[in-house]
């Protein structure tokens, strides 16, 4: 692996290639495609959180002039999976806002009016709206066929699955402890907060070839999911990923695309569908509300002897809460002999949850990092010293199995201890809270093609939608590998028929795995260039070096020639074998785990309950920061989202399961004026499996802020508030009840 001091381009901070188009409004997002003859689709959504559908009749809509198509469950294959049933309800509607039918009409307004002409007959059922309700004896069942872990010998249950991780003997470990602390915590449903609503345009031609243009984090997944829901072949579908206005995990599943294709098929017109903000809130995936219990025991010197966690997650209407990743993450920062972790995936009548940045980890780590903080307090230890004493390191077996290779947790903790924001005393009237963050990161499959233009400039085609500046990172890694300037390279997110297969942008995998493919494709280019140079010079290819963007004869090779740049080689490629293109594909293993340490200083107004965040510092191991400004941006963005979730954000439902704050005026994300400067420090412990040492950096940043904020409020108030969000009325109530 290249040493940091050898790098020329990686680690610099050039302007992002997509920046100007975005800030000038020229970039084309999901709703920006106009096709000749295009019409507009709208979705009829359930007014009930739980009801049996007796009948759906779309004939009234179809009778309206200007309405060109209408679809309901009967237009889709009966045999379908959860995703299909989420896209269009079958026997039951399972949450308020669940899609029941859709129409396409000549104008969006007409389409909306046509929805009123669709008749749906419902048999309304009792909704299940919380974990407590769902797991209570005699609870109404969201899905009468659901048995825990598929065990049909047991009665049907709202608990879809129970996950367990265990090592050693937790009870024995607690018995050996001098101090045992525990707590119970609740974290609300939260929205990813992407600005661009879901949107797509679909068209189908006379030969049955479907083209979908949409805002997505994974256009290959849109192809797979859409084909499955429509009961067609992926070979019939081409998906083009538009520019994306934020995703954070929320744009990994289809909602509109299969409906738009079906409407296009029936109307023989291109169909555009765009959600409004309310639909985004009511009917797309937020992250799970959770109820978690954590317990930890330690010796007087701080050595943790045992820990347990019970993590229950709302899945929404279908199984699949991110409780598995929660279980993987909850104790990952610690080297433990004895622990047990249990996770529950619980159905409720709310939208099917989707990924949200490190899905499942923030909620679980909030519980454990709060308890660890309480332990430090009980022991009279500095919270960073306690973590250092128990920190996972190279060779530690992760709670979920494998041994960690080189990781940066200790380096982050040491950096935090030495940081001027930590050595500075806590400001008067403030509390300070510390927490660790973790995300395992993933690799998976990526492809890249590197094309050389006839002037020697370079095009990268790859399949990872760019949600965090990845095109710039690809260009930086290619520039470093090829030895040419950054501005001679363009990266392009190619459609599903213009580049090799690629998994979605998620799991913080893109810069790691797609980056690895890009680097290998550049190495392929270099190998070919050496051959072309050897041919030109009439020497063997193994007598050629690639040095600083040029082919040169190896030292000692008797060739009195000038070096050949990419442009030189391109100029004469007609004589050496034709155009040059490189390619590589990977199923990347060894995504290095990402760790972080965050702390915040904040004040609580004891008269109003309002929290004023005065300072926030995030330290994270990036492996190696390809574009440091984007790594810092990820850290700051994660902190902002985490602070919002900790202090203000929540889905509020009424007793009928209707969301009461389905808009950004009532769902309260923090804005710039709510936040202090978020200071960042990047630690670099290179990941040995990536050619430049990259670890994923996108998700770890949101895993520490909830607990750091909770711990700071604990420090400021002198007692713990265990339910998020710590909104002003809730904190004031807690303060009043403490003061009697």
């Amino acid at each position: 692996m290249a040493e940091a001091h050898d790098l020329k381009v990686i680690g610099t901070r050039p302007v992002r290639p997509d920046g100007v188009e975005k800030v000038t409004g020229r970039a084309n997002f999901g709703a920006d495609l106009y096709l000749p003859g295009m019409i507009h689709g709208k979705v009829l959504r359930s007014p009930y959180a739980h009801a049996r559908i007796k009948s759906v009749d779309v004939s009234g809509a179809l009778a309206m002039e200007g309405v060109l198509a209408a679809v309901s469950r009967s237009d889709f294959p009966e045999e379908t999976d959860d995703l299909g049933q989420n896209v269009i309800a079958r026997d039951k509607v399972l949450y308020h806002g669940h899609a029941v039918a859709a129409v396409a009409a000549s104008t969006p307004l007409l389409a909306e009016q046509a929805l009123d002409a669709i008749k749906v007959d419902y048999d309304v059922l009792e909704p299940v709206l919380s974990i407590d309700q769902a797991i209570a004896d005699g609870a109404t069942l969201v899905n009468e066929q659901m048995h825990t872990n598929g065990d049909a010998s047991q009665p049907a249950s709202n608990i879809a699955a129970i996950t367990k991780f265990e090592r050693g003997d937790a009870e024995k470990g607690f018995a050996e402890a001098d101090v045992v602390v525990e707590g119970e915590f609740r974290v609300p449903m939260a929205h990813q907060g992407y600005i661009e609503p879901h949107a797509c345009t679909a068209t189908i031609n006379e030969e049955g070839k479907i083209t979908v243009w949409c805002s997505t984090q994974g256009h290959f997944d849109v192809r797979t999911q859409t084909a499955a829901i429509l009961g067609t072949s992926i070979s019939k579908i081409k998906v083009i990923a538009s520019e994306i206005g934020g995703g954070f995990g929320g744009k990994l599943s289809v909602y509109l695309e299969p409906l738009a294709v079906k409407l296009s098929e029936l109307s023989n017109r291109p169909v555009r569908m765009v959600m409004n903000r309310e639909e985004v809130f009511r009917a797309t995936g937020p992250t799970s509300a959770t109820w978690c219990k954590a317990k930890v025991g330690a010796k007087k010197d701080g050595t943790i002897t045992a820990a347990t966690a019970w993590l229950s997650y709302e899945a929404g209407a279908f199984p699949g809460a991110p409780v598995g990743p929660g279980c993987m993450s909850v104790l990952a920062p610690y080297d433990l002999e004895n622990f047990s972790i249990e996770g529950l995936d619980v159905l409720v009548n709310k939208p099917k949850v989707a990924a949200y940045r490190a899905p499942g980890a923030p909620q679980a780590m909030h519980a454990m990092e709060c308890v660890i903080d309480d332990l430090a307090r009980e022991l009279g230890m500095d919270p960073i010293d306690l973590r250092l004493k128990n920190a996972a390191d190279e060779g530690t077996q992760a709670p979920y199995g494998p041994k960690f290779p080189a990781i940066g947790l200790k380096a982050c903790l040491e950096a935090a201890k030495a940081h001027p924001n930590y050595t500075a005393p806590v400001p008067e009237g403030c509390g300070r809270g510390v927490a660790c963050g973790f995300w395992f990161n993933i690799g998976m499959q990526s492809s890249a093609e590197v094309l050389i233009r006839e002037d020697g400039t370079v095009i990268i085609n790859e399949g990872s939608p760019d949600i965090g500046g990845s095109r710039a990172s690809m260009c930086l890694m290619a520039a470093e590998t090829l030895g040419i300037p950054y501005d001679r390279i363009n990266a392009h997110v190619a459609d599903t028929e213009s580049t090799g297969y690629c998994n979605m942008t998620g799991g913080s995998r893109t810069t790691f795995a797609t980056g690895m493919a890009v680097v290998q494709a550049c190495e392929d280019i270099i190998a070919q260039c050496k051959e072309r140079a050897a041919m030109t010079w009439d020497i063997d290819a193994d007598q050629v070096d690639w040095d600083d963007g040029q082919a040169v004869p190896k030292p000692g090779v008797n060739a009195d020639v000038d070096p050949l740049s990419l442009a030189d080689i391109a100029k004469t490629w007609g004589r050496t074998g034709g155009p040059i293109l490189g390619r590589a594909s990977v199923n990347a293993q060894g995504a290095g785990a990402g760790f972080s340490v965050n702390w915040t200083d904040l004040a609580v107004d004891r008269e109003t309950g309002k929290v004023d965040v005065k300072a926030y510092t995030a330290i994270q191991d990036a492996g190696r920061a390809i574009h440091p400004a984007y790594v810092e941006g990820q850290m700051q963005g994660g902190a902002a989202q985490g602070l919002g979730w900790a202090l203000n954000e929540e889905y509020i439902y009424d007793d009928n399961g209707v969301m009461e704050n389905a808009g950004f005026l009532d769902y309260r994300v923090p804005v710039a004026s709510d936040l202090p400067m978020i200071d960042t420090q990047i630690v670099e412990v290179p990941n040995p499996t990536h050619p430049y040492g990259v670890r994923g950096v996108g998700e770890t940043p949101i895993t520490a802020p909830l607990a750091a904020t909770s711990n700071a409020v604990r420090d400021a108030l002198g007692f713990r508030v265990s339910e998020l969000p710590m909104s002003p009325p809730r904190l004031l109530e807690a303060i009043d009840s403490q003061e009697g």
Partner: protein
Amino acid sequence: MYRFNYHKPDGMDAAQQLMADAEDGVYLSGGMTLIPTLKARLASPTDVIDLSGLALSGIELADDSLTIGALTLHSEVAAGNEISSLSNLALAIGDAQVRNRGTIGGSIANSDPGADYPAAVMALGATINTTAGAIDADDFFQGLFETALEPGAIVTSVTFPVPGRAAYEKFPNPASRYAVVGVMVAETNGDIRVGVTGAGPCAYRQRNFEQALADNFSVAALDGLEVDYAEFNSDIHASAEYRGHLVGVMARRAVAQIT
């Protein structure tokens, strides 16, 4: 948004005639409440009468009073220094975009319980000048989105007596910046008034606070005073009880600013 007829009259009489002729008309000033309401389809007027063509903008200082034209933007009031508490209030409304579109006349005529200006209208004892005559602050706000404005009448300006001392404190909604509760305390020619917005269906005076402050203008004078929150607003952002509590806190903070 539903379909409606749009008009932009260039005179006061024309505007009122359009309103009289409309089946279900509304006046549009800055549109900071009306436009989102229309977009959310919570209102479906037949006619929207845009007042922005009327010459109702500007700030005029007389000997002991300030008259602000109804179409004057929040940002223009914020930039003034004639009544600093009023400028501070205007500066805390919404965000820069709202302050550059929203008007004082619109804010007051709408009587939104979360609007800021009504607290100042009550605390400073303002006079609301309308095409159908002047209305005292104490008579103007009558309920949730209800005022004493005659049907079809237009607010033309608001006249604020310049106070001896005054201060505004608000607890903003974290998303919209609307006042969950806002309190202005003012002393004008020896007369003490406490105007409250956000808490109840419309702005009102907290009379027991006024009496206590008249006897002893100090933060301590407000200690232990009751706020009857039985009729206060209760929503997902704050309960009536929490709002009642905030009235006391914001009033004490306002008093602290000017003692």
